[in-house]
Every structure is written in C-alpha cells, then in structure tokens.
C-alpha cells in the first residue's frame, strides 16, 4: 500500500466515511452480470446448502439443498445450478467478430495473418467475496470430472451432461480470476476495495456489509457506525442482523434455525416413506411445508447479500470507466473464446494439475498481466499515477522550455530537448529511458538528460514524432503544457517463449502423459 492509499485510509477513519482510491473504474462491469451468491454447510467443507443466482436483481433464482448430506439432493442442486448458469454463459458464444491475428504457419514457419473469431461479449460472474471465488473453483473442480450416463453407463450416480460442462466453465472462470486485471469473475469486496479506502483494516474490508456501509452509509449515520452495526449487531436470540456474505453461514443461525428445520425435514421425509395410503397426501404436504421452511430460512440469509452485491454494482457503475479497461476486457473475451473453442472441439476437462509447461506459461502470463495492469491503471488514473510519482517512478509538471535539436545521422531527425518544472523526485540517471502517453494513446519514448537548477529536469524526445524532419503536429509539447513521463513501459511484454508441452525438458518431468484423467472414485461419504 502506498503512502497515498494509507493517507486515504486515515482520512476515512477521521471522517467516518470511505475516501476514493481511484478516480475511474479499473474493472469492466457487464451490462448483465451473472450474480452468484453461494452458501455452504458449516463444517462439511464444500457441501452446498443453497444459492441465489441470476442476472436480474429483482428475480434471483433460489436453489436449496434441504438435506446437505443427501447425495441425490446435492446432485439435483448441481443440475439446477447448471440450468441456471449455463444459458447466460453460453449465450455469448455465437455472436462473434472477425479479428486478424498473426500465426506461425506450420509448414513454412513464417508468420501469416489468419482471420479468427472473437466473441463480441463475454459473460461476467460476480460473487460477494474472495471466499466466493474459491468456492467457484471448488465447485468447478468437483463438477468437471463427473461422469454422465452416456460416458460410463455402469458408474453409480451419473450426472446430467450439463453438470461436467458447467464444472469446466467454472474452472475456467476461477483460473481466469487469478490473472491480474481480469474481469470474467469478480469478487465484490476486492473490486470495491480497489476503488475505495475505508477507515478500517484490509482484513475487516473482507466483510461485504461493513465495506458497503463505509462507502455508502444509510442516510443520517456515519460509515463507521453503520459498519460496526453490519459487523456485530445481533438480535435478542444472538442471530446476526446482517447475515454474513458466505459461503459459510453464521454458527448461531446454524444451531438455532437451520439444524431444527433440517431435523423437521428429515422427520417429514421419513414419514412420507412410512405413510399409509390414506395419510399419504397429508405426509406429502408436511414434507413440502418443511422444505418451504428451509427455503425461506436460506432466502433470508442470502437475500441481503444478493442486494449488497447489486448495491456494489451500482456504485461501480457510477464511476467512469478507465480508458484502457476495454482493452483488458478484450483479453477476457479472447480467453472466453478460446475456452469455447476447446469445449466445442471436444477436448477433455482441465487436468487436476497443470503440467510443467502450462504452469510456467500461466505464471508468465500473470506476471505480464500484472505489469500491464500497473502501467495501465497509472495512465488511466491521476490518483494512481500520483502513487507512482511519490515512489519516484514517474514525474509530471508544466513544460518550461523546448529547444529544437537534431540527431547527427545522414538524414537528421528531430530530437527536441524539453525542460520540465516539477516538484517530483524521480529515480533517474543519465540516459534512463522514459515514456509518455501521446493524446492518441501511443507511447512516446524519451531519455533523461540532466537535472537543471531550481528543480527542473531536461528530457530528450527520441521518437514518436513521425518520419519527417519536422515533428508531426502535437507530438512535441509546447511550453506551458502539462506533461507526465514515466520510468516504466506503457505496454510491457512478457519474457521469452516457452517450449511446447511435448518438448518439456527432463528436468521438469519430461513430456506430460497424454491420457485423459479418470474421474474421482465415488465414495460413500463424498460431500460435494
């Protein structure tokens, strides 16, 4: 955290209200985000209990597992989840744009332009918190290896084909969320925390209700007081006034409300099995009532979080989108399109563990994405740039003087010297490469020349001025212009290429085995 962000946090603590950490929105927010609020059973790591899912804030779909220990009910839940999520995930697959991309021709080894499809939009999944992202990964891991009746007629408990398909998509979303700056799967607490500083610690910001209370407190209360209430307020029975954002439920709720309701459901179900014909209808009614009671209970826990996620979406939408967010979203669309192609080509599900080359490639891609994100956020947002200026990685100020000079080549090129008045103290030495964003979005290279008296800095422009002897209009700043140079590149590239998986060196385990992975063995005690 830079000192500027620290200052914002301290101001928020003093004012009792969140302070901005960004002046633009740094993540894409879809027009129709797919919001997913899951709940799990306390203790039974991963066993689903219920979920609210949907793209309309007024019409969430409630899914419930009335008895989390029952394998059939859990399977039904997963099938229903697939029915609720897949239509939105798949509807973006067919609207495509044509893009040109350079690919290596396998026969000649030359780079040739190829026309490829790029999906015009991609689905975006929004969960309440980082724990929600982990749960999406867990669901994906558990579902993608399920066998359908068609694949394996003898296996017990076959899954409908949509379940492993959703598992593959959730795995893809979970994997993509690890790429810095991606927006395919967003955790609301993380995105809000990127844009606002609260007067509490980063750890306490993981509580979605408290975080929202700081940013957008109810009329007439301070954010600090509202956050404290969201975090701690409990009624006379000890039930929280604001249910946790999950996926874990509150233990008091589990013991006082949920456990008795599940016990009643179990009794009603046993009753149905034993009921004599004339009592059959009554027993069924009792079972339906017991199930409805659990649904109501869970909806009461889920609905406040659902509304909070949408409140967060509103807050984010109110911020203007950063200029380079669209470029990053396009990369998300590429990743969506690539996964669509893998599914359509009938490739097997993602392996349990990546092979050495895939793992190294993912890591390199994430490092590049992080460097690009850092550069792009700074260029999009003066407040982020201020942090880089404070760290000595950039400097800005008005131009004091421009002296035209030329290179000593056969055809002289313009190499103007620009002198800048600034209070910033960048870590520069002679000849250090500098970068400046031109109004048209290109990046102009320059190099540092010297420190002048009274805090001026002189910089020589070394490119981006066109081909002629006179620089293109607008490519050289005029005295009085406000300019900002950075020491970091604006479009950093990744490292060298990695070998193909078939050429994995023996030091890294050699080429991976080609066989598709076997599904998990079914045991009597699985809980997801």
């Amino acid at each position, binding site marked *: 955290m830079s000192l500027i962000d620290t200052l914002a946090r301290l101001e928020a603590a003093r004012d009792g209200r969140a302070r901005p950490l960004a*002046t633009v929105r740094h993540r894409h927010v879809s027009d129709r985000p797919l919001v997913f609020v899951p709940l799990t059973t306390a203790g039974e790591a991963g066993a689903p209990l219920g979920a609210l899912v949907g793209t309309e804030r007024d019409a969430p779909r409630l899914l419930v597992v009335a008895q989390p220990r029952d394998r059939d009910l859990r399977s039904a839940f997963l099938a229903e989840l697939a029915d609720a999520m897949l239509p939105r995930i798949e509807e973006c697959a067919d609207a495509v744009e044509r893009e040109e991309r350079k690919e290596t021709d396998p026969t000649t080894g030359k780079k040739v332009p190829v026309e490829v499809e790029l999906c015009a939009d991609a689905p975006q999944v929004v969960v309440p918190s980082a724990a929600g992202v982990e749960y999406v990964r867990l669901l994906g891991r558990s579902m993608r290896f399920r066998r359908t009746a068609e694949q394996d007629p003898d296996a017990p408990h076959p899954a409908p084909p949509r379940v492993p398909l959703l598992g593959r998509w959730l795995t893809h979303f979970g994997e993509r969320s690890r790429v810095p700056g991606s927006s395919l799967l967003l955790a609301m607490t993380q995105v809000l925390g990127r844009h606002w500083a609260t007067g509490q610690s980063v750890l306490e910001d993981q509580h979605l209700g408290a975080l929202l209370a700081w940013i957008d407190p109810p009329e007439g209360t301070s954010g600090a007081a509202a956050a404290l209430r969201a975090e701690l307020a409990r009624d006379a029975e000890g039930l929280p006034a604001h249910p946790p954002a999950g996926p874990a439920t509150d233990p008091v709720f589990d013991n006082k409300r949920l456990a008795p309701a599940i016990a009643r459901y179990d009794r009603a179900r046993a009753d149905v099995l034993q009921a004599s014909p004339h009592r059959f209808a009554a027993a069924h009614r009792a079972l339906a009532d017991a199930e409805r009671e659990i649904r109501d209970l869970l909806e009461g826990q889920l609905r406040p979080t659902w509304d909070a996620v949408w409140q967060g979406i509103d807050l984010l939408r109110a911020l203007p989108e950063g200029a380079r967010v669209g470029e990053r979203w396009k990369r998300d669309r590429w990743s969506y399109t690539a996964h669509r192609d893998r599914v359509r080509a009938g490739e097997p599900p993602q392996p349990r563990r990546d092979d050495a080359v895939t793992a190294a490639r993912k890591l390199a891609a994430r490092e590049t994405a992080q460097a690009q994100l850092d550069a792009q956020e700074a260029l999009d947002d003066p407040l982020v740039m201020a942090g880089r200026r*404070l760290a000595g990685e950039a400097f800005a100020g008005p131009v004091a003087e421009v002296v035209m000079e030329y290179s000593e080549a056969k055809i002289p090129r313009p190499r103007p010297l620009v002198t800048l008045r600034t209070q910033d103290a960048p870590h520069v030495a002679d000849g250090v490469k500098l970068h400046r964003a031109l109004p048209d979005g290109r990046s102009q290279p320059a190099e540092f020349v010297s420190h002048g008296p009274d805090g001026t800095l002189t910089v020589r422009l070394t490119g981006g001025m066109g081909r002629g002897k006179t620089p293109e209009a607008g490519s050289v700043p005029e005295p009085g212009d406000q300019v900002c140079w950075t020491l970091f590149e604006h479009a950093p590239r990744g490292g060298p290429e990695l070998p193909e998986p078939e050429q994995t060196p023996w030091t890294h385990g050699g080429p991976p085995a080609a066989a598709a992975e076997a599904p998990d063995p079914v045991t009597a005690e699985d809980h997801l």
Partner: protein
Amino acid sequence: MRGHAFEARAKDDGGTELIRLLCERLGDGSPPPPGPGGVDTPDLAASGPEGRTARTALALREATAAGRWALLDHPMLALSVAGTPAYLEPDAVVVHPDGGWTVVEIKSFAMVDGAADAAKVGAAARQAAVYALALEPVAERIGDGASVRHSALLVCPKNFSNLPDAALVDLRKQVATTRRQLDRLTGVADIADGLPHGTTFDLCLADDGRTPTRPADELAAAVDAVGAAYAPECLAACELAFHCRARSRAADAVQTLGRALRAELGGLSTIEAVLAAAAGEAGDPGDPAVAALRRAARLRAESLETAGAASCP
C-alpha cells in the same frame, strides 16, 4: 463436530492406517508398514494434567525402548510459556522403530489434489511446531536414540470424501520461530508485578458453576489494567479482539488500520497526529516520515482536483 468425526475415523483401526500413510509419505526405506496389530497403542489415562504428562513421558520411554511402531493417542505434554507451565494435547505422536518421534496433526479441511488452503496448512504447521518443541526436552531426558523428527504428518480428508490423506510438513522454520518467540516473552510474574494489587479475572461463578457473579465493570477494569498491542490480525484468533479494537479505536491508534501502516508512519502513532503532520499543521518538516507524508498529501489533493475538474467540465 466434523473434525472429531474425521479424527475418530482416521484412528479407528488402532493407527495401522495412519502409520501406513506415514511410511508411504516418508518413502525412505524405513521398515515396512506394520500389519494389523503391529502398532502399540499404550494407555495414557491418568488423573490431572501433571499425571497425564508423566504417564506420556513414561509411555514414550517404553515405546522408544521397544523398537516397535507405537501410536500415542492424545498424549499430554508440558511446555513452559512465559515462566508458567502450559499443557498441550497433540492429536497423536508416532514412535518409529528407530526411536524417532513424529507429531501427527489431524485437520478437517480438505486436501484437494494434494493441495490445501495455504493459510490453514500454515496454522497447522505452527501448531505442530509447538508440540515438537514440547517433545524435545522429553527426548533429551530419555536419550537412548530418542529424537523428535523435524517433519509433522498432516492428515486431512482426501478431495471431497472422508477418507484420510496425508502430507509431511517440514517444521524446522516454525520450530525456530516459535522458540525465539517463546524466549522473548515477558514472564507472567513480571506482568503480574506491574498490575494494581488485587487484580483478578476470576468470574466468581455461582453455585451452578455457570453464572458469573462478578460485576461486568469490575471485570472490564481488570482487563483494562493489562496492556494490549492490538492489530487487525487479532480478530481471527482472539475472543478479546473486539474489546481491544474498541480500545485501540478510541485511542485513535494508527495500528487499528493495519500493522503495515504503523511501519511506514515512523514515530506518528495517532491518526490525528498523522493527518495534522500531512496537512502541515504539526510535525517536524525535517523528519523524513513527515516530509513524505506532506508530499503524499500534496500529490493526492492535486490529482483528486485534476480528476474532479475532468469529470465535471
């Protein structure tokens, strides 16, 4: 609940399965895993923590001398913390035929494809390190080849099932850290000396053994008499954290917002002082922390102004 059920399941065959997992993970040519009945499970029952600790030490001595596999289920160990003995109860300790001892920690979080939540594994490793530390003096007293192995066996449910899976966790770093921290702790006697005479946390339970009769004010005053260094990490670990947080907030301490903040603000310890220094109303401009704060405040105000001007033309 689930934790207990899983632990019972992992041990229910008298430790054969646990020791098979241990041998498999060690994979170093140790003696082959014993068959059913090949594992000694000494009885450790005794009265009181001192009695159980002595019984455990005796059982460890006998098991080491026997040169067979043995599983000590819930032994009791003593460790001196800040000058007072603390009694610890590991899930299990395995005695190898060669005299090595391995701490076994059974946890209920899942190990999916051989990987588990890093934070939880870290916590389990720190916990096991404390047990290893408490075992060391016992091993020294026994001598005769007895030694504490520097890896613990972490047993977790495998994937989405209830079957046990295990991994060896190297404890050397955690043991060294814990030892250093324990050496640096202020003695309980020294802390008690600094308190007002008669300070007590006794709840004065009524005859039913549950209802506290001491007035809440008195108890709060006693708690307030003891200093506390609150940091947000306390919230995950301590039941008094909300109390300390309220106190820390009332004192306007910057550490309420995170440990890292405190480190970068130099000698300024209250929010008011930091903001006053940043605004140029207080503080020594020659202090590098104050100078950096003022630069940060200026840059922040400047860029918020630029952005505000840009968004409202």
